[in-house]
């Protein structure tokens, strides 16, 4: 798998994404936000960070960048696009994913490990996640509270697009396990076509046991499996 990792001026997880992809035996390169082409990429990762400083609203400016036009086209052709943290926010702002991410309910930034339950395994991002396990991955965000109106939520449920929920260690989506107030403990979703996904937790920071957890690898492995099938 060769991954294009977008680089906005204040992306700060761009190198982490490249590192994680390489650690898992694949290749990746950075694509500058002013570029209009993604090159020969099998998949795209929109990484975490603060894109353009995010003083207006997270991801609000990034969606207008030249490279995002290329990403929109790539997604329209069925290409795999994964948004992590700020990348998830950008994909929502760009309209590639429904809903929005707003300030955490306690108004504080949260950096901590969380548990995730995977709700759907028939996607390019989840097929290799073991059936029985909850995943452990870190979050690091101030605006990760997923919000969508009732019709959108209904559509997400009907389309089985809610991929991950914040849970406790036993996989229960309790309120205490919800770090930011996301509706239905939603941590990540995909689009109706199932080729674009976003999540607030960081699989890129969870790909080596040395860093405390390597559960993030399942998401990247799922993408590889999907590409091999295609």
């Amino acid at each position: 798998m060769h991954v294009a990792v977008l680089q906005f001026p204040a992306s700060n997880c761009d190198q982490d994404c490249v590192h994680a992809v390489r650690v898992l035996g694949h290749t990746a390169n950075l694509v500058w936000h002013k570029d209009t082409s993604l090159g020969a990429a099998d998949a795209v990762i929109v990484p975490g960070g603060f894109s353009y400083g995010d003083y207006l609203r997270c991801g609000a400016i990034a969606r207008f960048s030249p490279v995002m036009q290329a990403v929109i086209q790539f997604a329209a052709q069925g290409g795999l696009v994964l948004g992590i943290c700020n990348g998830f926010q950008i994909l929502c702002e760009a309209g590639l994913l429904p809903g929005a991410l707003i300030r955490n309910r306690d108004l504080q930034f949260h950096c901590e490990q969380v548990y995730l339950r995977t709700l759907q395994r028939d996607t390019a991002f989840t097929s290799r996640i073991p059936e029985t396990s909850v995943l452990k991955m870190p979050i690091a965000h101030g605006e990760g509270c997923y919000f969508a109106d009732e019709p959108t939520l209904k559509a997400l449920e009907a389309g089985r697009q809610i991929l991950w929920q914040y849970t406790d260690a036993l996989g229960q989506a309790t309120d205490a396990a919800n770090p930011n107030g996301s509706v239905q403990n939603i941590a990540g979703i995909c689009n109706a076509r199932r080729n674009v996904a976003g999540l607030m937790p960081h699989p890129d920071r969870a790909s080596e046991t040395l860093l405390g957890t390597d559960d993030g690898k399942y998401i990247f492995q799922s993408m590889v499996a999907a590409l091999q099938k295609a």
Partner: protein
Amino acid sequence: MHEPAITPELVQKHNLTPDEYTKILTVLGRPPTYTELGIFSVMWSEHCSYKNTRPLLKTFPTKGANILVGAGEENAGIIDVGDGLAIAFKIESHNHPSAVEPFQGAATGVGGIIRDIFTMGARPVAALNSLRFGELSNPEVRRLFTGVVSGIAHYGNCFGIPTIAGEVYFDKSYEGNPLVNAFALGVLRHDQITRGAARGVGNPVFYVGPATGRDGLAGAAFASQDLTEESAEQQRGAVQVGDPFMEKLVCEACLELLATGAVAGMQDMGAAGLTCSTCETAARAGTGIEIELNLVPQRAPNMSSYEIMLSESQERMLIVVTKGREEEVKRVFEKWDLPWAEIGVVTDTGRMVVRHGGQIVVDVPAAKLADEAPIYFREAKEPAYLAAVRAFRLDGLADTTNPGQDLPKLLADHTIASKNWVYRQYDHMVRDGSIVCPGSDAAVIRIKADSVPVLRADMDPTANVDKYVAFTVDCNGGYVYLDPYEGGKAAVAEACRNLACTGATPVGATDNLNYGNPHNPEIFWQLKESVRGLADACRAFNAPVTGGNVSLYNQRGALGSIDPTPTVAVVGVIADPAHITTQWFKKEGDVIILLGAPIDLADPLQGLGGSAYLRAIHGRKTGTPPRLDLDQAVALHEAMRALIYGGRVKSAHDCSEGGLIVAVAESCFSQQIARETHRFIGATLDLTAFSDGREDALLFGETQNRIVISASPVDAGKLLAQAAALGVPAHLIGQVGGDTLTVKTARGTFSAPVADLHDPWWNSIARVMA
């Protein structure tokens, strides 16, 4: 432009003494212009010149085989970590700005220290901070605490640096004058070290970063006087506003710029902004520098030369470019959409010349301004309060009758309690290098290929990049107050002990000296004595000081001076990642061994002087703090590392505030697996053999040089023998297992469920802040 006439009142307003003004007349051979007066006042402030402390700072050990850039040479020291790689690190204070405007004050403190690191050509990869506040029962203190923590979080998180370690103490002495000391560490190769020198006569001087505004006018001078209600109010304008997004762009652009090879010198505009960066770069290179202020990007109309030169607008850099290579530099600025301007040229005159619209407004000898600030040997007098401190004895203080009640109280003490409310707000995992996160004795990061700045085209990639670096910051200001010399020693020893527990060997230290007004001989005595302690300890542990910062005048009106607080960050390396050790117990059935003496019976206070126990349980802040024998400390740390290298140590946690039982309790419950998910593991201690002293001293005394380790029972004998052979007392004191912490002494037994002990420790700060 009309400038005010220089009068004695104006000189005094600039915080310059008549003698200092006379020295300015001698340096210039004429009266200064208004702008020059402003320039001398900031450059000769304590913040920039160390005029009150330079003789003391000279007593620090600063030499070492691994030191590539030493203390005072540049913006930050640099230490060799092998394989052609090096680390740059430094700590700096932003106390007064944070007292006035906590969010921006702390945020710009982080911004400033990050700039000091990438100015050296290093990529900033880790941050930590050392904070002091008054007591959280005071709503104003809670406001400051909230503001400082969110300011640090805002800047560091957006920039993308893991804020991975730190310490916070709460004491009334910091009520009106909190301390915010920020540390950053960067990585670079030896051949990437950049100098803040204006080299090459005829080379153009570039300004990059946002436009200069009226914010932060003369912040360095503000930081070098007592904080009063009026000054705080008036000086709100001296607090700068930070933009971490801009800093990220400037950092990436500068590192890319250095990779072009077109940069002859680089310096950030920190304290004293354009003034400091121009005269220091010229002074370092032995050249001169000439700039035109009309070329400097300006945010406000009609700014005077005084304002432009003294502004501390943030995120600005001064870059000296090799003549003829300007286009390469401009390309990088444009890629990152950064404002830039060519503002001047390097000259051979040795003078710093500033023109404004062609007219000369400043013409001073750069080296004399930068390096020849007056030096003061202040009067030192032993503080009167120390007589009562030394006379304090335990006779009137009944021994504890209910240690089971004391323990949760101590664990809930805000200084001892978990700082999760703080560090959860800091992104401490960005950059994929955080191996030991906040919550253990010292943080450990991994340096990897992408930690190194962009390489020049002619550089071969580094063969072996992976390095493991540990760091921590410590200072028990209460100890320093009660015995400045011992307290200074203890600060360094605790930091080095924390590193030893992690498996790391110290390679260098950076210190931040926070004190009251040095004109007060009692304050200066505190300063002098504690520096002596720091220096002796740094020598003993082979941790040379590579730089740091001095912050004086930390006092506010009737609230008086802060406790003398020389915070010390020590950095260490771990050769083999298998040696990285954490503080929490690992397995049921493991044995618990205490390295060091259970109690120091030679100390009349048995380790209770200045202890958290005396303060939190008895409301007393007094008594000579426990002695720290440096030879024993060195032996303990060497032994700790040797035991870890032997592969038999499963956990190691140093005894500090709260003593032995707090250390053991923390070993039982401090492992956090994930949000709302903690690992609790009980322990049973048998301390009946140590019945010679007081019960409270045995349990909660802070006798120095002690570490609690755990190991498999089959290894216990070997570890005890090995420790003895290395000259360190070692005692088997208990076993890991069960759900309770149970402690048996000669006087009885107390026991509590680990979960019940964890709750006050984990939640006490969050509860008071809710």
